[in-house]
């Protein structure tokens, strides 16, 4: 396959979107992460973003939705939306719970009292690994993660 015969796609204009609904079972998380990173690979996001930022932040959002939002009620569903272009990735995770106060729940996991705790690092990691974390209600409790593409 010589390069002049099949040039790389002009992915500057590429836009991918994904929607998926899963039962409230943490065993689905890994597969969802695989599918989302596969989408981002098409847009040549950096290896670091594909192997650290996206998997970890998305895993946190999904496990909070399943465990905190839906409390593992198997009849409750978690919706996942991914919208990615060459500039940025937007992930939305929607659960059927009552929501939460993001400001309040987001703690500094590196403080001396928190660093020895077993839990409480989920929102902190999302905030560290993404460019923005938002929470709002819209047909459910939505956590929106946005990440700009790094070269």
């Amino acid at each position, binding site marked *: 396959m010589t390069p002049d015969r099949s040039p790389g796609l002009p992915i500057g204009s590429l836009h991918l979107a994904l929607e998926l609904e899963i039962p409230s079972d943490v065993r689905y998380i*890994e597969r969802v992460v695989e599918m989302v990173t596969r989408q981002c690979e098409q847009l040549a996001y950096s290896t670091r973003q594909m192997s*650290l930022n996206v998997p970890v932040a998305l895993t946190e959002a999904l*496990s909070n939705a399943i465990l905190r939002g839906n409390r593992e009620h198997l009849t409750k569903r978690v919706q996942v939306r991914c919208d990615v272009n060459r500039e940025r990735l937007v992930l939305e995770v929607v659960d059927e719970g009552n929501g939460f106060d993001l400001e309040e729940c987001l703690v500094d996991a590196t403080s001396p009292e928190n*660093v020895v705790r077993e839990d409480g690092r*989920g929102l902190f990691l999302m905030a560290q690994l993404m460019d923005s974390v938002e929470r709002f209600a819209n047909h459910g409790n939505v956590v929106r993660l946005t990440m700009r593409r790094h070269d």
Partner: protein
Amino acid sequence: MSFALRKQGEIVVVDVEGQLIVGNRQELKQKVLDELERGEKKFLIDFSQTGYIDSSGLGVLVSLSKKIREQGGELRLANLNDDLKTLFELTKLDTLFQIADTRERALESF
């Protein structure tokens, strides 16, 4: 993803293959606690074959390190790739754990 445990001298070496996340961290915890109960004291967790770790995976490591210390034992981590190093740095967990670059160094450090 799976956890392979084997004895190397008097050290229990655990290989974490794949992800260490909310869906499987309990299995790692149980396997290590079983060994601890059997009287093992020295543990090395090797991450050379690990993908990503989430906050509950990190939580299990914190929990195990406490439990091992309570029994007078020691826990070492080895072979964190760059992504995992970053994860430990972001959470300052690199200050909580004894982390070696290679499995050999970790084994020697006990």
